[in-house]
């Protein structure tokens, strides 16, 4: 790699190369080229569109007419046409080139690699079918319309384009903000490891999520994760190892260097959301605060399965709470009562968080629509955002209720889950990252 990975995520100028008519092969089609051009309209830098079929109004017809020294080219052409135009492309002195389609044979890949060796350029792909996104720059160089996630501190690297798009799809579904995204595909030049290295240094990125298949230089990769977790959490999902013993071995490597491993896309985003929004957890004792006492049983079960214990509130805190609200029942969990409103949520959560016997809090709401209003839920977010050393996560046991709670705290730094298991997994990840941080600080 001789170019700058930075140009992939933070280009000031982008050249889109494709054909608006005539050429169809695999992922290459006029429809996708139109989508790509459309998706880039939010880009805050300069966009040049090169239409080799010469039909798109206002587009450049010939590569030779593209101004030299642009930052990033996104190429949507079949392999044969890429190779035919390869020299012209290289002559443009572009810093980074994304080759979206796959289908490059051994010989063609070698030629691509030679280009990288000779020029100051880096290549993402071929087969980088999900493209690249940087939401804060309006960079949305991908083929599907309407998959742009909201802004956020999570960065996603995906080996596979389809899995990458699925991650973006779920991110949108759950309203999880994504800052940067890239799919690496065949990785003739830039690999997941290179992107990981960049994102480790990237100030906007709070959490790094990676979807992997095989790893070429495992030693380097594992070393890079070790470095990354000193600065921010890394969440890994991998495919293709479940059939043999290496699955267990790979899981052990990740654990050893402090990466959090998850099984499915929903878990990836759920865990990453918590890591992006809440501080790491420093112990095992969780306080459960709820307006629906019965359903809290399920939360306690889910927490126990992850090896958490229930926090016991001190007499002082208990007295403060019951002194102000005598009807609040404090036993295994804090039962606010079904009519709890914002003032009660706020006061009780603040008290619970101030207790030295509490390492983290789960707020479980059953949404009695007639009682709980958006501002009541916002009180949770308000307290959670102020908590600097103890995580607060919110959970419902009902799906529809979860959508409403999420809507009420949209854009706020409190993760909201639709099942106790997911909430417990989120706290588990926060606890694991807390331990990792402690090890880093101890230097072991």
């Amino acid at each position, binding site marked *: 790699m001789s170019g700058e990975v930075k140009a992939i995520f933070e280009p000031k100028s982008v050249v889109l190369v494709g054909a608006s008519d005539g050429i169809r092969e695999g992922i290459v089609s006029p429809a996708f080229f139109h989508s790509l051009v459309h998706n880039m309209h939010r880009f805050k830098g300069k966009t040049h569109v090169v239409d080799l079929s010469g039909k798109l109004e206002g587009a450049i017809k010939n590569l030779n007419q593209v101004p030299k020294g642009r930052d990033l080219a996104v190429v949507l052409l079949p392999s044969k046409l890429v190779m035919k135009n390869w020299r012209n492309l290289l002559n443009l002195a572009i810093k980074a080139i994304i080759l979206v389609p796959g289908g490059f044979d051994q010989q063609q890949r070698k030629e691509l690699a030679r280009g990288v060796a000779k020029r100051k350029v880096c290549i993402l792909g071929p087969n980088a079918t999900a493209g690249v996104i940087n939401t804060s720059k309006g960079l949305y160089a991908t083929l599907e319309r309407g998959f742009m996630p909201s802004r956020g501190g999570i960065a996603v690297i995906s080996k596979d384009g389809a899995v990458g798009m699925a991650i973006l799809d779920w991110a949108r579904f759950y309203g999880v903000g994504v800052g940067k995204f890239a799919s690496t595909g065949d990785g003739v030049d830039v690999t997941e490891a290179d992107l990981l290295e960049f994102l480790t240094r990237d100030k906007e990125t709070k959490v790094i999520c990676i979807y992997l298949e*095989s*790893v*070429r*230089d*495992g*030693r380097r990769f*594992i070393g890079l994760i070790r470095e990354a977790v000193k600065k921010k959490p890394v969440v890994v999902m991998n495919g293709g190892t479940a059939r043999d013993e*290496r699955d*267990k*071995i790979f899981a*052990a*490597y990740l654990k*050893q*260097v402090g990466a959090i491993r998850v099984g499915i896309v929903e878990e990836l985003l759920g865990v990453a959301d918590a890591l992006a929004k809440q501080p790491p957890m420093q112990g095992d004792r969780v306080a459960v605060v709820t307006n629906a006492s019965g359903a809290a049983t399920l939360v306690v079960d889910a927490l126990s399965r992850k090896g958490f214990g229930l926090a016991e509130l001190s007499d002082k805190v208990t007295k403060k709470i019951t002194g102000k609200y005598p009807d609040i029942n404090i036993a295994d969990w804090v039962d606010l009562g079904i009519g709890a409103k914002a003032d009660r949520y706020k006061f009780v959560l603040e008290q619970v968080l101030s207790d030295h016997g509490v390492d983290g809090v789960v707020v479980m709401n059953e949404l009695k629509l007639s009682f709980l209003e958006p501002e009541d839920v916002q009180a949770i977010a308000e307290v959670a955002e102020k908590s600097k050393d103890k995580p607060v996560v919110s959970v419902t046991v009902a799906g529809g209720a979860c959508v409403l709670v999420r809507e009420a705290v949209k854009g706020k730094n409190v993760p909201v889950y639709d099942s106790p298991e997911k909430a417990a997994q989120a706290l588990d990840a926060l606890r694991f990252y807390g331990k990792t941080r402690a*090890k880093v600080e101890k230097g*072991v």
Partner: protein
Amino acid sequence: MGLVADKKKVAEILNSIRKDGRRELVELESKRVLAAWGVPVNRTELARDLSEAVKVAREVHYPIVLKIASPDIIHKSEAKGVKVGLSSELELRQSFGELIDNARAYKPDAKIIGLTIQEYIPPSREVIVGALQDPSFGATVMFGLGGVWVEVLEDVSFRLAPLSAEDAREMIQEIKGYPVLAGIRGTPPADVGALVDIIQKVGQLAHEFPRIAEMDLNPIFVFDDGKGAVVADARIVLRESE
């Protein structure tokens, strides 16, 4: 990690195996490598014939363990090539020929170097430490309790080498059978610190000698806390080519 590693000596032994055109080290050679690397092994001596055996056994002290030594026989128990706890010269004399006969019956063309006379270790908790080279990630260490724990329950843990003491401790605590080592129903805890040391050393050895494709220290006897651990059998296999 109290490392008294003799890198030169290990390289010498491995080179001589290569020169022999072999990949597989016999138990005695494997233990020499481990001993040179500072891993505690039970005293193990070669006897090429009976008179040598009688002499060596007196030095090792009865009771002893007698095992067939052949580069062609990997599973010595399967070949009925092991006698444990021989307590006298009479028993040694009775067993010597028997083990050689058994080996011949098991594998007629096996090259038999002789028998090893080994220090007998009284029954204690058994663990296994192994190493492998992952094609992408490199030297990797495996840990498990002996016998059914590993073979049936697959209750093992892995870590990338080299390992910190904390890594080694975590991999010991991670297995489901850990309470067996921590001490259950009145049994005192096992010497986990000694295991941490062995695991770290095995990891370092596999990391510094990538030509070691596989290592299997099985069983390792681990004594009560403060009393150490000792490797009772070991197998090292080299990579196919340099």
